[in-house]
């Protein structure tokens, strides 16, 4: 996948020259003093004081003069014809200004349909039928939130129920067609393959052992504590649309709004203020956003729309919903040789995932994982059902979680089948450190890795051999204890422009740094933090590069009028892309700073060397100019012929993705009476390359692990046979509390990315990707001797109870 074009060659001039042979360490590298606070410092977050004092500014905190409120009428059916919408009673209510229907949107220029990020189409509001439960049917605009809520009760819709199709395997039979708006009367959306089928079949023919298993990776929902919402403020006089929006990708959203609405892009300003958690759920454009913007256009007033939690859980994009059939082959020595996978992807009523255009199944073909296989072949089919559309993120959008779950479960099954210790088995099947850069059988070029170092470290941290001994003793007494391992390979940082785009927009990201005369700086980015701490980490990158104290750098994101264009924050891409752009922009500034320093010191450029925060004359460090002095000179005493000022912009197009990895070990105890799984210990060794801020990285890993635990044991979006969501509140969609979440035990190895300017890789999603198979493997490890080979996540007490009782185990 690595591709050197003009752009990356240009970058390589500025790159630090990190070689591919950088060894793995476990010490965070710190090059700046704490007063500067560059990379590696456990720096307290710059953004925290406002959040700690209730001064964050989230979308629902935005209050504009004369603001109206929108509420949405939603379908009680998963599939139904709409015969009539009678809004007359609602319109007669005091305080109700408008009811917006699909017909209204159609009349306004075919706004009743919109493109999804996967180039499919999705209804904004229906004209003739609804295709999922809780689908938007029409919207009411009123003078208050309370009146709007009353008014939606007064809209009467005449539905004619149609048969739903909830099961994707049923949908493949095409007996009920979900999208009869399409020319092709089929629910089958796409077929996608990766790898080499013939080579894979050959490997299977020669296999000593073949194991097969089916996995269902359930539908789940990010359920960030802040739901989605918008304040749209159309100024008829200026013909200007200002939008406050819960957006992880404000620039891309502005372009989508411009394309959909026909409003000129320079007349649209999207502001993504503080975001109360995103995790991928705030990447798509939802119908509510479009209707809210139209409501402001129609009324000429600011309109606010804030989802209820139920709307959020019932209608916003889901994640996962993959039905996987996998086969793994091993040779006569037990070495893994091949993988064959068929998968059905339930897309709901529209393919509204947020994958790069060329990747309808995301990066699922990373599914050979950390193992050195001879061949692999992967097939995925996408299918429509009468369920909400999506396939977006749950802290991992590009289907890496599904891939890792499958391969880590399969490797574990193979180890158990062969009677080998799952840790030893992994160690002898890993891609070796000397094989990097490694080209996988499905075509990925892994930039770096050292899988055995991470697993060995994890095993050491919890004394793996002693735990195995304890397990054997417990088993002899009839107690159920399991140890599960996951040695995952992540793939993040989308991505190189050759292969990666969303709706045609290449997946670069950007940084713009301006140093003010007094040595303070403003840095703006095309990404958008939702809690990841960009205001701190980006400042630390710039501090590292330029020696300006991180506290002197103001980081700003999320306002499309001021920030450089970028694709946003999701898929753990901010550090690999915008983080790289920060370093590259800083290096451009540094190049100019050097010339200014040479001018000030009256020496040649080549006589100077950089030292933390200054250029000094080689061999006489007393002769130096600090970055602050240089900044001042850039405005007051710059060389003749040079432009004044000290600023730079970088649009970073990564040469390759980055490949973070890790090894997790989970220890569980199982209650034979109830089937409850208790996570006793969980050790997580992550390798995300160079660490910008260990405090923040730890926080990312803790959060990601809990979001890995959640779908492993608790969370699932469940539909009944009518397509009705049974888990539409937080009383039934079970987010773990502090009691369910274990005390995570972290460790790290550091294997820098050889192609990333600061050797970093991205970390937010790794733990969510890596944790579920560790937990599932631990449960199955506890039960394997009872004949249990698989329990699909979420591993709820009833599922474990059934496995136990089927095996004759009781309390």
């Amino acid at each position, binding site marked *: 996948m690595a591709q050197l074009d003009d752009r990356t060659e240009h970058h390589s001039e500025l790159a630090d020259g990190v070689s591919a042979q950088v060894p793995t360490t476990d010490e965070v590298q710190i090059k700046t003093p704490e007063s500067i606070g560059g990379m590696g410092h456990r720096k307290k977050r710059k953004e925290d004081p406002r959040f700690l004092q209730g001064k964050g500014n989230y979308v629902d905190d935005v209050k504009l003069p004369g603001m109206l409120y929108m509420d949405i009428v939603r379908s009680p059916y998963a599939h139904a014809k709409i015969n009539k919408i009678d809004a007359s009673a609602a319109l007669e209510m005091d305080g109700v200004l408008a009811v917006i229907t699909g017909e209204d949107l159609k009349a306004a220029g075919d706004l009743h349909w919109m493109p999804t990020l996967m180039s499919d189409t999705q209804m904004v509001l229906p004209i003739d039928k609804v295709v999922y439960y809780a689908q938007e049917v029409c919207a009411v605009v009123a003078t208050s*939130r*309370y009146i709007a*809520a*009353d008014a939606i*009760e007064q809209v009467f819709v005449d539905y004619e129920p149609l048969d739903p199709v909830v099961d994707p395997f049923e949908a493949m039979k095409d007996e009920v067609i979900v999208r009869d708006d399409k020319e092709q009367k089929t629910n089958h959306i796409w077929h996608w393959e990766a790898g080499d089928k013939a080579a894979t079949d050959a490997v299977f023919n020669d296999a000593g052992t073949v194991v097969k298993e089916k996995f269902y990776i359930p539908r789940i929902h990010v359920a960030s504590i802040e739901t989605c919402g918008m304040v749209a403020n159309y100024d008829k006089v200026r013909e200007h649309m200002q939008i406050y929006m819960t957006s992880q990708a404000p620039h891309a959203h502005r372009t989508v709004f411009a394309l959909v609405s026909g409003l000129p892009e320079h007349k649209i300003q999207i502001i993504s203020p503080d975001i109360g958690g995103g995790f991928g759920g705030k990447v798509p454009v939802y119908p509510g956003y479009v209707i809210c913007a139209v409501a402001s256009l129609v009324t000429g007033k600011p309109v606010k729309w804030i989802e*209820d*939690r*139920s709307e959020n859980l019932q209608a916003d994009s889901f994640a996962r919903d993959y039905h996987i059939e996998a086969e793994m082959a091993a040779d006569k020595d037990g070495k893994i040789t091949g993988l064959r996978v068929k998968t059905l992807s339930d897309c709901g009523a529209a393919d509204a995932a947020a994958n790069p255009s060329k990747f309808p199944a995301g990066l699922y073909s990373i599914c050979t994982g950390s193992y050195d296989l001879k061949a692999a072949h992967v097939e995925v089919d996408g299918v429509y059902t009468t369920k909400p559309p999506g396939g977006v993120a749950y802290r991992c959008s590009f289907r890496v979680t599904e891939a890792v779950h499958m391969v880590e479960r399969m490797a574990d099954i193979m180890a158990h089948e062969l009677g080998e210790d799952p840790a030893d088995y992994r160690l002898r099947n890993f891609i070796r450190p000397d094989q990097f850069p490694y080209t996988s059988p499905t075509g990925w070029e892994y930039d770096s890795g050292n899988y055995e170092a991470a697993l060995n470290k994890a095993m050491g941290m919890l004394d793996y051999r002693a735990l195995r001994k304890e397990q054997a003793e417990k088993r002899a007494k009839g107690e159920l204890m399991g140890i599960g391992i996951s040695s995952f390979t992540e793939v993040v940082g989308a991505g190189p422009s050759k292969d990666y785009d969303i709706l045609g927009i290449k997946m670069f990201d950007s940084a713009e740094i301006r140093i003010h005369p007094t040595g303070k700086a403003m840095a703006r980015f095309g990404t958008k933090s939702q809690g990841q701490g960009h205001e701190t980490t980006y400042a630390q990158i710039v501090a590292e590069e330029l020696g300006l104290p991180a506290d002197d750098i103001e980081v700003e994101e999320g306002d499309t009028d001021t920030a450089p264009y970028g694709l946003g924050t999701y898929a753990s891409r901010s550090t690999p892309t915008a983080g790289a752009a920060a370093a590259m922009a800083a290096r451009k500034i540094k190049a100019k700073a050097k010339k200014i320093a040479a001018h000030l010191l009256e020496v040649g450029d080549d006589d100077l060397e950089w030292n933390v925060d200054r250029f000094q004359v080689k061999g006489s460090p007393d002769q130096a100019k600090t970055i602050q002095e240089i900044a001042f000179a850039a405005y007051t005493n710059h060389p003749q012929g040079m432009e004044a000022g000290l600023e730079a912009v970088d649009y970073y197009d990564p040469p390759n993705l980055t490949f973070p990895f890790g090894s997790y070990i989970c220890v569980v105890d199982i209650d034979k*009476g*109830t089937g*409850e799984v208790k996570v006793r210990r969980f050790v997580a060794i992550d390798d995300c390359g160079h660490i910008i801020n260990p405090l923040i990285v730890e926080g990312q890993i803790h959060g990601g692990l809990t979001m890995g635990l959640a779908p492993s044991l*608790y969370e699932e979006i*469940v539909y009944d046979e009518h397509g009705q969501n*049974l*888990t539409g509140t937080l*009383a*039934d969609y*079970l987010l*773990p*509390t502090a*009691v*369910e979440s274990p005390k995570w035990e972290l460790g790290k190895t550091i294997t820098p990315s050889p192609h990333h300017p600061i050797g970093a890789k991205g970390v937010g999603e790794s733990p969510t990707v890596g944790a579920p198979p560790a937990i599932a493997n631990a449960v199955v490890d506890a039960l394997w001797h009872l004949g249990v080979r698989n329990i699909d996540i979420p591993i*709820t*007490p*009833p599922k474990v*109870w*059934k496995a136990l*009782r089927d095996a004759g185990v009781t*309390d």
Partner: protein
Amino acid sequence: MIPGAFDYHSPRSLDEALSLLQQHAGDAKILAGGQSLIPAMRFRLAMPSILIDINRLDDLRYIEERGDHLAIGAMTLEHSLEDAAVVRSSYPLLHDTAVVIADPLVRNMATVGGNIAHADPANDHPGTMLAYDATVVAKGPKGERTIPIDDFFTGLFENAMGEDEILTEIRIPKPAANSGGAYTKFERKVGDYAISAAAVQLRLDGGTVAAARIGLTNVSAVPMRAKGAEAELVGKSISDAVIEAAGTAAAAECDPSPDLRGGVDYKRDITRVMVKRSIQQAVARAKGGK
């Protein structure tokens, strides 16, 4: 999620509350802690036209031993049960229950009377009060009356009080010597309703169970006692086999509905396990353990 409109009254005395209730009989709902009612109103599953808020009736907030019983004012906060020394020392079944009701924040609003009067089989107090053989005190226009807990729960969300009556007090008999009780709840996560839970209160006479009452949570349409399980215990010398028999009887006599918490067979078996664990704990406490 905005509640429908209603008229609101906030009486300052029980008599004023009763008179309002009589005046608006059929239209009014009593607002106690509101932790079940207000969410139901936000979903517009409940749309009372009149709310009578009895949270200002501080006279109904007390926990004290009076004569042969522990008297708990209906408006006593669940949180107060957790902290009350008398509950900690002498009513371990009640204390067990109080600490697993919903979550700590909900327990700062939710009331004991509300939990019982709601007559929700998923709530935790009904089973506990059944096990304690508690008495409910209700006051109405005709005065005060007592209702044995066995007669109190008449249907799903239905109780034996008239529309014009207010639950004012719950009386728990003082446990005799050599008594022990325990509440074991299995929930999907903290704050959830029980998959199943068992409240056991028993008295030992030497190694023999002299008396036992068992209440079950969330495994029937109406809060229920496990009388079959009780029968397996009373008069028997305590043993693993006897405890198992009691658990098995409870599993057979409960009547759970399948839902996201599990199927019928699962809930029955969990009931067996909960009953067993509560008995074991109750026996240990009757013998002087914690």
